[in-house]
């Protein structure tokens, strides 16, 4: 079972879920911008998962993003944003 970490925020309108790598600059930028804007989100650092959870997390990413690249951002369980997209993230806080 994956155990996502939660980050609180004042913008809760959308469910924001991130698959990230701890070492990745774009993943770090994505998390930092969400926090700066106060958007609540959950995330799983895929490279930090132990044992079977790493493969499990990878399979989850592949369902949304066949390139299995990071960050993979899932909005409201229906929209997938791949990579650091400043415009899309700012929209989340503006809505």
């Amino acid at each position, binding site marked *: 079972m994956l155990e996502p970490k939660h980050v609180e925020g004042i913008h809760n309108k959308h469910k924001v879920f991130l698959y990230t*790598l*701890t*070492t*990745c600059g774009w993943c770090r930028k994505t998390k930092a911008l969400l926090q700066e804007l106060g958007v609540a989100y959950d995330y799983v650092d895929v*490279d930090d998962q132990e044992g079977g959870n790493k493969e499990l997390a990878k399979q989850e990413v592949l369902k949304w993003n066949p*390139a*299995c*690249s990071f960050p993979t951002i899932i909005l409201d369980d229906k929209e997938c944003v791949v990579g650091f997209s400043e415009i899309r993230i700012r929209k989340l806080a503006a809505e």
Partner: protein
Amino acid sequence: MSRIADERVAEVWARLVLEAQEAGYFVNPDDAFARDLVRGLLENEARYGYRACPCRLASGERGRDLDLVCPCDYRDADLDEYGTCYCALYVSPEISRGEKTATSIPDRRRVGGPPASAEEMERVHVAGLTFPVWRCKVCGYLCARPQPPLVCPVCKAGKERFERFM
């Protein structure tokens, strides 16, 4: 907290900048961003034993990840097309001068790495060569000698990143 000491990051970053300059490459001008990438490379070295790209998920098996050991096999193609490599450690001269900004780009690496059959590129057979010609898969450096060099003199990639070219 990172287990990599700041001094170690600074030391590796300084060497990387120097090697990039000498080889005609440019690095990201956002110092904090670039240092974090170097820290990521060292984190990967600590956990996998090699400096896998910080922005890609390594398998943990060196043989399967050779193409994404930094500098990765895709750096130069990405620099040509997007002006930045995938993690944005290496960038175009324009971006390094701050005239343009590096953005997140799509990964050109095939999921799981290059197929085994593509390992050996189609060779050009030239009769009568005194020495085989070896090609560095990272930067394209060519040399004619019995074996590839231990380290590519241009991009510093290891011997295992060379392929037989002719």
